[in-house]
């Protein structure tokens, strides 16, 4: 005998504990199993791309802070990189190193949040997340030292950075970097030997190599599927070509691999920061750039390896003081396109784990 079943629609979001902001998923469910999913976003749309057209190039840096608010520094970096490409501005070496240090710290911070929230979605009652917060707090303190801000930094400037690091920054950074591997190990021990974490993450939400490429996924999501692609190596910007580091990749592309890749990337970031601290030269931190920048007519695309994937800013100049067009390539949104394929056929509980493992930031999805 077969029972007649009926599908029903369940709205997860926009106000839902697991949707990391105001994201909405419209599930078509057959019991617990997801038949179809329709992502709905735009609840946090602020029209940043349009707003940017009304302000000067340097004023737009502030907007980039508000995109992925868990990784403001890297947003700054990608934007100023695009502007510098557009206007042909050389950046002093010390500023480049400072940018790298800040960006890698940001990557650690963002990955900490990603792993913490993933575990929170799996159902660990806040504990891993708060441990992650503890470490992130130290990074925020470092940023506070450098630029006086803890969330939206507005630190990078066209042609450099806003201010040099204070004296107490270097020892504080050293202390943090030296202590971090031990903490990461602590997390790993807590999580990797935990049978429930393993059965909830392994073989769940598997994204094949081909699909990952087809969805033009980037960042940890792509690398977890086994593809060695990192803008820092593939198209080196800033001074990344001077550092030795590995690109960690996964094998299966499941939730567990994404989590592993993030943990490994934190180790690599630590290595990069260590090398940057050794190599960092003295000198200028800012080239002379006119306050009202007027780049020649043309276009430029600046891209970096953000914590969540390839973050790109596409700028078109018509020769005026404001950008004619600013377009953002948000890694969160593009990684999200794989969501539907990943979610169909899994249970709701896994859906949240998969969604968490993609690690989106709604500020960046909606812009």
């Amino acid at each position, binding site marked *: 005998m077969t029972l007649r079943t009926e599908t*029903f629609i*369940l709205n997860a979001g926009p106000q*839902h*504990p*697991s949707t990391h902001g105001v994201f909405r998923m419209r599930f078509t469910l*057959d*019991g*617990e*199993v*997801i*038949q179809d999913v329709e992502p709905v976003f735009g609840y946090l749309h602020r029209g940043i791309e349009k707003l940017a057209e009304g302000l000067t190039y340097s004023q737009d840096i502030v907007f980039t802070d508000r995109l992925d608010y868990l990784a403001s520094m890297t947003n700054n970096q990608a934007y100023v990189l695009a502007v510098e490409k557009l206007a042909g501005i050389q950046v002093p070496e010390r500023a480049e190193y400072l940018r790298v240090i800040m960006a890698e710290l940001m990557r650690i911070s963002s990955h900490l949040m990603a792993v913490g929230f993933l*575990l*929170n*979605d*799996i*159902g*660990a*009652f*806040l*504990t891993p997340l*708060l*441990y992650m917060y*503890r470490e992130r707090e130290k990074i925020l303190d470092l940023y506070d030292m450098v630029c006086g801000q803890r969330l939206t930094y507005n630190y990078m400037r066209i042609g450099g950075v806003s201010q040099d690091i204070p004296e107490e920054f270097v020892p504080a950074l050293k202390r943090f970097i030296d202590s971090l591997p031990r903490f990461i190990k602590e997390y790993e021990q*807590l999580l990797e030997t*935990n*049978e*429930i*974490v*393993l*059965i*909830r*993450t*392994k*073989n*769940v939400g*598997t994204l094949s190599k081909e699909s990952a490429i087809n969805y033009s996924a980037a960042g940890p999501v792509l690398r977890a599927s086994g593809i060695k692609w990192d803008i820092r190596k593939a198209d080196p910007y800033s001074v990344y070509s001077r550092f030795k580091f590995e690109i960690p990749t996964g094998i299966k592309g499941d939730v567990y691999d994404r989590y592993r890749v993030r943990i490994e990337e934190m180790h690599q970031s630590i290595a990069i920061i260590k090398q940057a601290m050794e190599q960092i030269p003295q000198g200028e931190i800012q080239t002379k750039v006119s306050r009202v920048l007027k780049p020649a007519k043309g276009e430029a695309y600046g891209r970096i390896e953000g914590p969540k994937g390839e973050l790109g800013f596409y700028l078109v100049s018509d020769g005026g003081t404001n950008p004619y067009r600013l377009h953002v390539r948000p890694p969160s949104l593009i990684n999200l396109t794989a969501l539907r394929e990943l979610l*169909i*056929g*899994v*249970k*709701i*509980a*896994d*859906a*949240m784990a998969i969604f968490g493992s993609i690690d989106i930031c709604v500020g960046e999805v909606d812009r």
Partner: protein
Amino acid sequence: MSIFSNVIPTVIHAAPLAPDWPSGFWSHLIIFVVILFIFYIFMAMAFIYFERRVISRFQIRIGPNRIGPFGLFQPVADVIKILIKEDIIPGNVDKIIYILAPAVAVVPSILVFAVIPFQNGTALIDLNIGILYIVAISSVSTVGLVMAGWSSNNKYALISAMRIIAQVVSYEIPMALAILGVVLFSGTLSMNGIVQAQTVPYILLQPLGFVIYFLASMAEINRTPFDLLEAEGEIVAGFNIEYSGFKFALFFLTEYAEAIAVSAIITTLYLGGWKGPFLPPILWFLIKVFAVFALIIWVRATLPRLRIDQVMGFAWKCLLPLAILNLLITACQVVFWPALSQWIIAGVNIVLSAVLVVLWSRFFRLTGDKVEA
């Protein structure tokens, strides 16, 4: 403490109601019900406070510390807050069931305390089928939760209700089988009798039974890692999503009352109940209850949640066979070696349990594979 031993003189057996002192019986009943109810409310508040403080230690936070010394009055403030909240009845709910559900949930959780011995003979009633009564009564709460989930006319609540039916029915069986092991050793179903029979705490004689009972009761009272029905990451709050004010407070109370009940039952069955040296029995009882609850909190603070199919698989593939084996082993020991020293049996059982658990974890692996749609 003294009020317990002075007011209520001796054990009162339910089966032969003493016909010559009905007034004594009724005074005992009324006084004890009042005491028990106060105990129930205070313990629930103490547990809420205790859990919040302990779990915040796990999470490198401080926890409630504003109201009163060490935040001791935080639960009181919570209760006041929750009681003066607006009691909303949404438009499309099944009104009668919706209103009835919290009561159906909370009453059995109070009734369980009737047979729990706080010290020798101090229980509301020492039923000669005490443990059977507990198994029967404690699962009635579930009906209340299902009613709430069904009547709320909310999809999250409905999923939660379906989950809890599946889960509780599955875990009831290994739980009852685990209890049978204890009953075989003690030779009685009376809660007080079980405590008196424990010369060696049954956690040593029945280590496997203890583990099974502990896990199954975690599922029964919906604590992590089996808290599927209120998985806030998936179905927000589950069955109580549409409830507010006093009705929600009743569900909250039920949850904690069940936790107290399970801690008390584990204390009674496996940890020797009120027995212990030096301190008064009631204090020993409370210490053990809080120790068990601390273990529950520890689990909650550490472990993520299982998925529904994994929860079911765990019950049927792991707990049920192990519970049956445990029962078999216990029965053999009771029948064939009744005169053997309990310490020897304890040693044998600890080794056996370790072997069985390891074997089972090798044979049966819960998988995280994709479900066929």
